[in-house]
Each structure stands twice: as C-alpha cells, then as structure tokens.
C-alpha cells in the first residue's frame, strides 16, 4: 500500500531521463525542443508531488468542512508547491515561445532543420 505513493516519483525520474535522451541524441531541432518540454513537465510533477499529505483536502480555507478547519493546517495539502509550480509553468511557456521563434528564423536562413548541417561560420 505504501508502494503506491512512490509511483509519481518513479514517473518523474523516467520523464527526466527520456527528456535528456531526446536532447542529447536526436538530430531534428523540433525534437530537441520537445525534449526540453518533457524535462520541464517532469520537474513540475516533482514539485506538485512534494506537497501531498495523506488524507488531505484542497487547501481552500473558506469552504472547507468544519472538522478540517479545527486542526487547520494539519490535514490540508501544502499550498506553497502549487504556487512554485505555477510560476515554473509560466516560465516554461515563455521559453518555449522564444525557442520556436528562433527555429522559424533558422529555417528561413538555412532551409533545413538538421542540427549537423547548421554550423554558422566556424573559423
């Protein structure tokens, strides 16, 4: 029964390794960007899973049942990691938009999306 609470952490490690494999070993630029997005989803999942307390309810204070309020922060899920995850998702959206715009410009200049053919002037 206690093994079930470890499944999200195993999923986090799996996602980070899949993302690192995609960034290191794939040749298409768009696949590298997808790999970074997978790593970021893994880290966000890790932050949310930190806050779980067994038998906890949603941390909204004004509409909770009254016996939860009596031992008030005892049986609520932690709210701070939810704020950290939200900030991280916003940062991820901005970085993704920037990377996709750069890929569009690179395709305009080079005509190909293969990492091995994009070298610039190397001297």
């Amino acid at each position, binding site marked *: 029964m206690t093994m079930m609470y470890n499944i999200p952490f195993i999923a986090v490690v799996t996602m980070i390794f899949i993302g690192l494999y995609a*960034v290191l070993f794939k040749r298409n*630029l768009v696949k*590298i960007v997808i790999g*970074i997005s997978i*790593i*970021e989803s893994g*880290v966000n999942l*890790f*932050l949310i899973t*930190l806050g779980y307390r067994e038998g906890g309810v949603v941390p909204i204070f004004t509409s909770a049942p009254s016996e939860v309020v009596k031992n008030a922060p005892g049986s609520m899920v932690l709210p*701070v*990691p939810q704020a*950290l995850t939200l*900030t*991280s998702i916003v*940062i991820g959206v*901005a*970085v993704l938009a*920037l*990377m996709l715009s*750069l*890929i569009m*410009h*690179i395709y305009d*200049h*080079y005509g190909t999306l293969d990492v091995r053919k*994009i*070298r*610039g*002037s190397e*001297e």
Partner: protein
Amino acid sequence: MNWFELITLHSPPLIVAVPLLTAFLTPLVSKINDTIRNLFVLIMLGITGLLILILGYDVLTNGIRVYVFGGGAPLPSGMNIPVRIMFEIDGMTIFMVIITIILAIICILYSWSFMKKEDGQDKFYTLILLLVTSTFGMELTGDLFNFFVFLEISCITSCALIAFYVHKKESLDAAFKYIVISSIGALFILFAIGLLYAQYNALNMATIANAIQFTFFDKIVLVLLIAGLAMKSGLAPMHMWLLDAYSRSPASVTFILIGATLAGLYGGLRVIFTIYGNQLLNTGFTFYPGLIIGIIVTALGVLSIFIGVFMALKRSDFKKMIAYAAVAEIGYMFLAIGSYLIGLALSAPDNPQMLIAGTYALKGGLFHILNDALDIGLLFLVAGAVYYATKQTSLNSLGGLARNMKYTTIFFLIGLLAVSGMPPMNGFASKLLIYQSTYQISPILSIIAIICSIMLLAVFVKVFQSIFLGPEIPSLKDVKEVPKSMLAAMALVAGIIIFIGLFPNIIIDNLVTPAAEALQNTTGYISTILGGV
C-alpha cells in the same frame, strides 16, 4: 535627516523596481522622440546609482540590512520561521551591485550611437533594462525561489538580445545553443530547490543555512546547484555557449552580458559559503567535504585557464579571441576560490599559514571579479568600435588602423596591458594577490597561472600588431574615428582602470575586505533574520 533615513530604509526594492518601471515605460516614451528616450533611460539609471551609493554607505558602516516585502518585522507573530520574501544585503552584495551599475551606465552611454542606425531600438532598450533588473534581483535577494525566477528572466532576455542581428545567421545559431543549455541548467536548479524545500519546509536562505545537515539528499543538491550555476557562468567543460554568444552579439550586449554571468558566479558563492557554510567551512585536515569541493573547483579553474589561453592562439576572429580570454579570466576567479577552500581545510590551529594564504586568495579572487569585468569589457568595446567603423571582424582583412583611429588604439593598448597583468593597470594588483597566495598552497598552480598570463600577453600583442600597426590596406583608407559618445564610454572605463591600478588600496580596504568578511560570516547572516535562535 528624516527623508534620508526613509530613502535608505526603502532603497533595496527600489533598486530593482526603478529599472523595471523604466523598462515598461520605454515603449510609450519612444513614441515621442528617440533622444528623449535615451536621456530618460540614462537619468533613471543615474537615480538607481544614487540609491546604490546611499545604501552602500549605510551597509558598510552599520552592518547587514534586511528588507521584508509587504510587512514590518521579519517574523510574523506566532511563527518561528520566516514566511515572507526578504532581501538581505551585506558587503558582498554591495560589491556586486556596484559592478553591475557601472557596467549598465557605460553600456547605455555606448549604445547611444552604436545602435543609432538599427531598427527595433525601443525593444533593445526594454530588453537591456529587463536584463539589468534581473541582475540586480539575483544579487540582492535572500530567498532561493526568488533567485531562480530572476535567473530565468536573465536567461530569456539575454537570449533575445544575443539574437539581435536576425539577418545574420550566426547569431541565431548562437542564441539557440545558449537557450537550450541555459534552460536545462535552470531546470536542474529548480529540481534542487524542490529537494531542499521537501526536507526543510523553508525557502529562505538563512533558515536553510541554520537547519542544514549533510544528508545524502543535501549532497545531491550541492552538486546540482554548483553544476547549474557554473554552467551559467561559463566554467570549463560548459564554456561552449560563452564563445559563440560573446562573439556574435552586438558589442554593448556583450558588455552587459558580462555582468549577468558574474551574477551566476555570485550565486555559486552564496551556495557554497552561506547555505552550506556551517558544514563546509570548518578548519582541520580531517574534514573531507570542503577539501573535495576545493580540489574540484581548482581543477576546473585550471582547465578553463588552459583552454582559454591555448585555444586562442590559432583563431583569426577578433571578438572570438577576446571571448577565449574571458573564459581564461573566469578560470582565474575559480582558481582563487578553490585555493581558499583548500587552504581552509589544510590548516591546523597551530599552523595558521595556510589560512592566511587562503584569505589572501579569497580577496584576490573577489578583486579580480571587478578588474576582469572592466578589462574584458574595454576590449569588447574597442572591438565594437572597429566593427562600427569598418564592418569587418576578421584579422585577415584588417590592418593599419592606427593612422585614422588614434584614440581607439590608445584604449586598446590600455586594455591589453590590464588583461595580462602589467604594472600600472589594475590587473597587476589582483593577479599579484592570486600568484602570492596560490604559491603557498601549491607552487604548480602559481607557475601555471603566471605562464598563462604571459601567453595572453603574446596573443593580444599579435592582435594589436595585425589590426592597428602595419601597412595600410586600400579598402580601409577612409575610415573615420568613431562618434563621441562611444569614445566617452571607452574613456570612462579606461579612466577607472588606471585609477584602480594606481590606488588599489582604496578599493581593497573599503570594498573587497568587507565583501570577503561578509562571505565568511555565516552566523551573522543567519542571526540577523532569526534573531539569535
């Protein structure tokens, strides 16, 4: 003195908020006129500089200062760990903030005429002001997640600035490489911050420093944080993005990017000295973690110096050779800090020789941060001036420019002498401290450092001879001297270099020694917030 005390009390958030407000007002002001916008930005940065001077005078005479966002006392009633975001300012913070504001003001002065003919100028000024805001935020904060948010802001804005020349294909390639490496490093830092929060239920640096024990997860967190922050500041195995990004972006962008990478170095220092201070900074030979970290940092520093100096010998692009010199200088800083950690771990209570040598190494390393930013910055400004006048960057097609550009030649000569550590310039003072102190820790390190300095001198004398001296090339016969605002910016940097070189004692006694003492004083940092608990 009521107004004065009020400004001093509220200056820490204003140092971050005034450039942020200016960054959002700039697109509205630039619809009126271009010159008014440049003046507006310069005046606002001048106000920020004034606030920094007032705050610096107060902190250097009165001690550590804490600012709590949105409230009064640091600990709200009924709680015994801090829950609000706090800025904590000690001597090291003031040192880094002064470096950043000098770099920012000179960059805006230089881009007045360097960027005059480009389009998209208002976005350029907005992005530079956001980069300056994020650098100030990284240096002033006392909260780990706040540090991560400002780090990500600086990654995104500096990537957009590196890709400023969108019609040339090399800048786009450099910017893509930079954003991939930077965002993976920042995600690892976020993972480490999540692990720290899970163990100690706090995000404040002082609370974590008070409660830290060196468990298995803490070792993982230390490795991830140092790796991520060293990736941001361009240490040896992770220096590839630095070469491309510094050499393919506009010169004023490179100048402010030096400040952003030094803020990454400051983050590394905070992690080693303050958060892990009680665990890593104990003296005595049987104390292994500090010794291992010191050896690794020193080894990476020596690797950076080697790569920076020896790979620069066969290049022929002007800006890329200066970028290799920048990598070598970052290696000198890490060498000094690693020597301090080794000296601390190898000293015994009846043999304080190693500890004194280590302290001198720390002071030399911190002084070298200031000198390196100014020297490498001056060299990049000269490279930008040459590009502005001739539109070329390769050594094969330049030559004989000293006839037409007299002042630029003199500034390059000053920068060359300063980078390689020759006596009347400031590089000599900081490098002498590093040579003396690393000699007592291990003579081999000092010999390597001296030889590589001499090789840097050889590299830059070759560059000087091939660009400025020599016969005149027919296609470059009618280049003119660069406009006056660029000359004024370069003259200001050269003036500061010569002033620090002639009177280094003023800077060391008033700025560097409080910074070194503030880094070693972990208990003072903790007890200012937690009140002696």
